[in-house]
C-alpha cells in the first residue's frame, strides 16, 4: 500500500516534466537478452568498419598532403584510399542489424530522438551519399588529376569533413534517447547537440577510430602477401609500421584522459557500480596492449610485429567491454522509465479492450432510429451522404429536393449514379462513387431519397 502510494507519487513527479508514452503493444520477437546480445555484437561489427572508414580517410588526407613534398606518401595515400571503398560499404551494410535491434528494443526512445532531431537525422542520407560519391571521385581521378593536386585533395577534404560530421548526428540521437526528461526542452538538432556528454563521447570515438585504423593498417601493410617494396622505394615497411603503431599508442594514452571525462559528464542517473566495473575492466585490458606496442616501437625493427596478435586480443577485449558498458549505462538509465511505460501500455490496452466491448452509442444512428418507416434509409443517408447533401440548398452537392426532381420515377438511374457518379455541374467537385454499399442498403437509401418532399 505505502509502496503503491510512493510509486504513484513518484509517477506524478516524473510526469510533470517527463513524457511517458505507450510502447508498441506487440511482443518482442526474441527473448530480450538475446536481442541485447545481437545489438551489442552487431553494433560492434558496424562501428569497427565506421572507425576504419573515418580513420582511413583521415590518414589518406594526411598522407596525401604530406605527399606534396614526398611522392612516396602520395603512393601511401593511394594504398590507404583503396581500403576505404571496401570498409565504407561494410560499414553501411553492417549498420542495418544494430538498427533493427535498437528499433525493437528501444522503439519509443529511438524514434522519439530521431523525430526531435528530424531534419538533421534525415540529412544523414544525402550527406553520406555525397561523401561516398566524393570518395569514388577521389579514387578514380587519382591519375587524371595528377597535375591538379589542390583540387584532388579538396575533394577528399570535403568527404572527410562530412565523415567527421555524421558521427556527431548519430551520437546526438543515441544520447538524446537516454533522457526522456530532456525531450520537452529540445528544439531541433542544435539544442540536442548541446546536451552534456555529446562532445566528450565524440572525441572518445574519434580517438578510437584513429587507434583502430592504425592497428588495421599496421596489419594490412605489413602482411607478407602485400608487395610493399614494389610500391615504395625510399620509405621502408618498418618506417610506416612504426608510425602506425605510434599513432595507435599515442591516441590510446589520450583515451585515458578522455575516458574519465566521458564518465564524469555522463548524467548520474545511469551510473552504478556495474557500469564502473565494466568500464574499469575495459581500460585495464588496454594496458598490456599498450605495453606490447611500446615494446614493438622501441625494440628491434624486425621484431616490431612480434606481439601484434596479443595486442589485437587485448584491444578486442577492451572494445567489447566498452561496448557492453555503453549498454549497461543505457539499460540502467532507462529502467525506471521503461517500467512506467510498460505499466501505462498495459493500462491503456485494458481500457481499449473495455471500450471495444462496450462502445459508446453512435449518435448519428440513434438520432435516426425513431420509428418512421424511412428510418433505416435515413441512417444510410446520414452516414454516407449528409456530409455533402442536405434537404434544401447547396452544401457540397445539390440539395435532396433537386435529386427528387431529377430521379422521380427513375430508380435505376439514381442507383446507377450513386454507384458510379458522372460529372454534370459546372463549379461542383466530383462526387465520389459508393460501390461499397450493398444492394439492400442502396435500395433503402434510394427509397428514402425519393420519399423526401
Amino acid at each position, binding site marked *: 500500500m505505502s509502496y503503491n502510494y510512493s510509486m504513484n507519487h513518484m509517477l*506524478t513527479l516524473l510526469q510533470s516534466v517527463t513524457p511517458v508514452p505507450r510502447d508498441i503493444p506487440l511482443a518482442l520477437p526474441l527473448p530480450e537478452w538475446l536481442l541485447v546480445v545481437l545489438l551489442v555484437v552487431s553494433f560492434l561489427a558496424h562501428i569497427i568498419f565506421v572507425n576504419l572508414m573515418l580513420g582511413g580517410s583521415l590518414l589518406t588526407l594526411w598522407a596525401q598532403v604530406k605527399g606534396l613534398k614526398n611522392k612516396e606518401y602520395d603512393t601511401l595515400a593511394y594504398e590507404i584510399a583503396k581500403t576505404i571503398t571496401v570498409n565504407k560499404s561494410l560499414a553501411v551494410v553492417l549498420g542495418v542489424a544494430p538498427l533493427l535491434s535498437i*528499433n525493437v528494443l528501444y*522503439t519509443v526512445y529511438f524514434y522519439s530522438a530521431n523525430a526531435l532531431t528530424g531534419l538533421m537525422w534525415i540529412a544523414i542520407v544525402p550527406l553520406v551519399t555525397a561523401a561516398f560519391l566524393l570518395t569514388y571521385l577521389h579514387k578514380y581521378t587519382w591519375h587524371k588529376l595528377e597535375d591538379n593536386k589542390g583540387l584532388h585533395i579538396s575533394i577528399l577534404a570535403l568527404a572527410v569533413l562530412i565523415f567527421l560530421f555524421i558521427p556527431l548526428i548519430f551520437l546526438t540521437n543515441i544520447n538524446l534517447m537516454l533522457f526522456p526528461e530532456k525531450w520537452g526542452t529540445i528544439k531541433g538538432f542544435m539544442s540536442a547537440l548541446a546536451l552534456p556528454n555529446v562532445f566528450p563521447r565524440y572525441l572518445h570515438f574519434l580517438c578510437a577510430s584513429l587507434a583502430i585504423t592504425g592497428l588495421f593498417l599496421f596489419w594490412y601493410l605489413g602482411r607478407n602477401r602485400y608487395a610493399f617494396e614494389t610500391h615504395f622505394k625510399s620509405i621502408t615497411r618498418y618506417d610506416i609500421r612504426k608510425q602506425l603503431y605510434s599513432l595507435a599508442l599515442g591516441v590510446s594514452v589520450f583515451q585515458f584522459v578522455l575516458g574519465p571525462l566521458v564518465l564524469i559528464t555522463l548524467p548520474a542517473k545511469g551510473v552504478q557500480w556495474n557500469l564502473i566495473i565494466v568500464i574499469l575492466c575495459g581500460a585495464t585490458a588496454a594496458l598490456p596492449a599498450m605495453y606490447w606496442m611500446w615494446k614493438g616501437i622501441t625494440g628491434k625493427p624486425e621484431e616490431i610485429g612480434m606481439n601484434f596478435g596479443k595486442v589485437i586480443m587485448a584491444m578486442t577485449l577492451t572494445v567489447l567491454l566498452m561496448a557492453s558498458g555503453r549498454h549497461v549505462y543505457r539499460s540502467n538509465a532507462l529502467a525506471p522509465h521503461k517500467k512506467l511505460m510498460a505499466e501505462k501500455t498495459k493500462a491503456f490496452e485494458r*481500457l481499449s479492450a473495455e471500450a471495444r466491448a462496450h*462502445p459508446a452509442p453512435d449518435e448519428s444512428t440513434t438520432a435516426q432510429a425513431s420509428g418512421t418507416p424511412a428510418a433505416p434509409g435515413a441512417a444510410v443517408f446520414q452516414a454516407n451522404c449528409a456530409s455533402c447533401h442536405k434537404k434544401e440548398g447547396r452544401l457540397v452537392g445539390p440539395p435532396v429536393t433537386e435529386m427528387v426532381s431529377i430521379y422521380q420515377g427513375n430508380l435505376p438511374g439514381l442507383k446507377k449514379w450513386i454507384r458510379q457518379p458522372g460529372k454534370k455541374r459546372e463549379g461542383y467537385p466530383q462526387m465520389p462513387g459508393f460501390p*461499397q454499399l450493398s444492394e439492400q442498403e442502396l435500395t433503402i437509401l434510394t427509397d428514402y431519397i425519393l420519399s423526401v418532399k
Partner: protein
Amino acid sequence: MDFPMFHLDWLNDRFLIAMIAIVHVFINHGLAVGFIPYITWLEQKGVKMAGASNITDPEWDHLVYRKMKVAFIITTTIGAMTGVGIWFSAGLISPSSIGSLIRVFYFAWFVEWLTFVTEVVLIMIYFLTWKQSNQSLKAKIRHIRFGWFLSVFSWITMCIIVSILGFMMDPGNWNTDHSLISGFTNPIYLPQLFFRTPTAMVLGGVFGMLLTTIFTDRHSAWRNTVLKYGARWVLCWAPVSLVAAVIYYKAMPAAMRENMSTAVGTMEFAQYYDLLRYIIPGAVSLVVMLGIWTLFRPRSVRMWMVLVPCVAAFGFLGIFERVREFIRKPYVIGGYMYSNLLREEDYPLFKRDGLLKYATYATASKVTPENKLSTGRDVFMLSCSRCHTTNGINSIVYVFERLYGIGKPLDENSMAAYIPNMHNGRTYMPPFPGNNEELGALVAYIKHLQQTGEPLEGAQSAGITVNPGNSTEQIADSVQSK
C-alpha cells in the same frame, strides 16, 4: 500519438518517403536485380567468343566492365543509402507502423540483412577483382560464377522485401494470429514477385543498352553485337513482364480495387489511373519496338532511341509503385493500423473519451472554449498531418476549398458535418478518431488556417509539449473506478 510528430509542412510527409523509396526501387531493380545477370551473361559471352587462344576479348570485356562500374558506383552509394533512407524516413513519419512491422518481421529482416551482407560482399568481389581475374581462364570462370551468385542474392533480397511490401497492402491472416508465417504467405506475395522479376530484367537490359550507346562510338567493333545481345535480352523478358503486370493488377484484393475506382473519382488520382492504363502497353511496346529494331538495324541505333524506352520503362515501374502506395490507404498495415498511425481497435476508446486524453504529446487533454485553437492544432497533427499539410502539398485548406468553393470563407458547420463521414465517400481516408468537442476544435483550427495562413511546425523544430493531463496515475485511477 506516442511519438513526437515529425512534420514537413510544405513538402508533405508521405512525399518524402515516396521520393526516397522510388529512387531505391529504381536502382535496386534496374541496376542490381535486372542488371547484374545481364552483365554476367555478357561477360560470359565474351569468353565464349574469344576462341581457344584467348581468355576473353579484351575490348569486349572492358566495355562490359565499364558498364558494371556504373552500376557498382551507383548501387553502393545512392542505392545503399536510399535503402537506409526508407527506414529513416519511415521511422520519422510513421514510427508506430514501422515499429510494429519490425516486431512482426524481425526474422525476415534479419535474414534479409544476411543476404544483403552477402550481396555487398559479392558485389565487391565481383567488381573489384574483375581485372585480376583476366589473368587466367580458371580465374575468369570463377569470376563469372561470382556474377551468377551475386545475381541470385540480389533476387533473394528482393523476394524478402516484396513480402514485406505485400504484407503492408494486405496482411492476409496476420490480423488474427499475428505471426510471421501468416504475414509471409499473404495473397499478394507471389503475383507481386512475379511482376517485379521480369520487369527488373527489362529495366536492367534497357539501361544496359543505354550505357552501350554512351560508352561506344558508332564505328567501334563491338557496338552492334552488344546492342543485339541487349535486344535479345529485353525481347525475351518484355512479354513476361506484360503478362505479369496484368496478373498482378487482377490479384489486388477486391477492397483495394474498389478503393482504386473511388480514387478514379478524384481528379488527381484519375491521372494516375489513366497513366497506368496507357503506360503499361505503351512502355512495353516501346521496349519491344526498340528490341526488334535493334535486332535488324543495330547500326542505326542512337542514344536517344534507347533513352526514350528506358525512361518509359522506369516510368512504368514508378507508376506501379505510386499506385501501390496509394491503394493501401487508409491503412498503413491493412485492417490493423490506419495511416494516421492509430490502431483500428482503439477507435471505440477514442470515440468515447476523446483522442487528446490519450495523447502523450498535446497542449491539453480536453477541449475548452479558450484552448480551441491549440487543441485543434493537436487534433490536426494527430489525425490528419500524415497526409495533409496546412498550406503546402495536399493542404487541408485547399481540399476543403475545393469542396466549398475556392477563396470562399469556410463554414465550420459544413466541415463538422463532412469530417465524421468522410471515410465513407473518400475511402482512402481513415475515419475521424476524436469526439465531438475535438471535431469542433479541429474545424475551428482549419478555419483559422484559412484566415491566417499560419504554418504548422513539426517536432523537429518546434519540439514537443507533454500532455499535462495524461499521467499514468490518472489512467490507473480510471481503471480502478470502473
